[in-house]
């Protein structure tokens, strides 16, 4: 069975840990608990009959005082950039981190942008134009909600397919 490392990165409190918790353990908590360093979770997925084990590196969020150490993304097979739809600036942070990752490990690694907190759509600062601009850059985007689970399975399935060189699911 293939083992594939996937790094989840983004600003603090965008919902990286919640996405992993929803996807791996089917649970969600409203309470925000900051992540220090990295927590690694596993999940086995099936891509067109081929089993792969995802190693999900839930990496601490970037904040004003600390940036993501690039040693964490060494050897990764995919990057998931997580953006909080209710905080527009987290999109900029995601792409700042992405540019550091590109410098550290190259820009050929499969990448997906998740616009999270879709259940709070009425509070979103991220606009359709923002999402269109990301798509225009050739990056797959999906809208997710760890709270109600929407888009989460599809997002991880898509990144798994991309890592195996297959077409991702249709973008949300």
């Amino acid at each position: 069975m293939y083992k594939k490392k996937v790094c989840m990165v983004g600003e603090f409190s965008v919902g990286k840990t919640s996405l992993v918790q929803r996807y791996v353990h089917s649970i969600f908590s409203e309470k925000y608990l900051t992540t220090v360093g990295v927590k690694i979770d596993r999940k086995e997925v099936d891509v067109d009959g081929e089993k792969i084990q995802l190693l999900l590196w839930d990496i601490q969020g970037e904040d004003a005082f600390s940036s993501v150490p690039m040693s964490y993304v060494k050897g990764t097979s995919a990057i998931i950039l997580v953006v909080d739809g209710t905080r527009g600036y987290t999109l900029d942070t995601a792409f700042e981190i992405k540019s550091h990752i590109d410098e550290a490990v190259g820009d050929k690694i499969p990448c997906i942008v998740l616009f999270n907190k879709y259940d709070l759509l009425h509070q979103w600062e991220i606009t359709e134009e923002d999402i269109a601009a990301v798509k225009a850059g050739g990056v797959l985007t999906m809208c997710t909600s760890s709270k109600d689970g929407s888009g989460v399975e599809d997002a991880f399935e898509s990144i798994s397919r991309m890592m195996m060189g297959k077409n991702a699911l249709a973008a949300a």
Partner: protein
Amino acid sequence: MENFPDPVKKVLYDRLVGKGPIGLLELDLSGKPVSLYGDLESFGIGDLDLDVAADAQLDFLTGMLNPTAMPVELPFIEMPSGMSTDIHIFAENNRLWVLLIGVDDKSSRQKTVQQKVNDMSLTHHRQSRILNQYLGEEVARRLKIGIDSVDSNGERRRLTMMFADIRGFTTFSENSQPEEVFEALNIYLRAMIPAVIDEHGVIDKIIGDEVMAIFGMLPGRTNGPNHAVLASIRMLQAIDELNRARRKQNLAILQVGIGIATGPVSLGVLGSRHRKSITVIGNHVNLAARLQGVAGPNQLVIDHPTYNSLNLENQNFTRKMVELKGFSAPVAIHLLEFDKASNPEIGNPGCDPNLGNSEG
């Protein structure tokens, strides 16, 4: 250090390494385990298969064992046992070495601080969002006009900076329920911000109870110092009215101190697409902040260049010399004690038909 007595070594070891467990994996260049040392059980690492590469057995080593890309340092990795661990990977003597140091204490301290800072940052964002619901469009519109007027390479301009905050707010917030604090803060800011907008100012920053505004960037009907002082008086007036209502409800009284300074500053626009902000740097910015520190409850303190540029009538400023931190010589200041009775002609700013409806 080999010759040091054992008790000294122990102190140094504890100080440098901490009291957490330590483990060491010795691997051959293909990544297969050769020897295992230390307290690996504390990290949740049981028996490893010596015929299988360690990165296939241990998730945290996946993709990490390339001898040409050493050393690698991975801080605060949560191990299978749940222990937060600093991992160092080296290549030495045709071997790969994976050193594991348990850092639960350090991680938990870091977590406490990080949680507090991030919570504060989220609160600030939420607070800005609430404000924007009431005033955001106008504040944002003014800010955009200000940003658009600034040379993208930065420039130098003579501007008037104002800092205002609630006296004793920290004590109030420490002794009050969070809901009460945020309600008071929102009411306070909703009283303060229109004063800046009506006087053609740009809100530069709101940090907690501190408001920083810039005057002289946007066209107005008079100069920046006049607008800044008028805005201050409107603020003090608004707070006075607010307090009358709060007294009736037995709520804490909010008292404001304001500092203003005028002079040449370096002006630029910093930030990303979603977080553009005007940045003013210079001695007069620091001076305005210091003057706010000097101002007592319901006092406005301005520097001499601001005072000299005023053409307002009936302003009862008192001149003083003060020593300020960061300033080598005493600074001349002008202090206005807000007293509604002594400022009757500005007691009703709504009488001026030009206020708040003109950009030029």
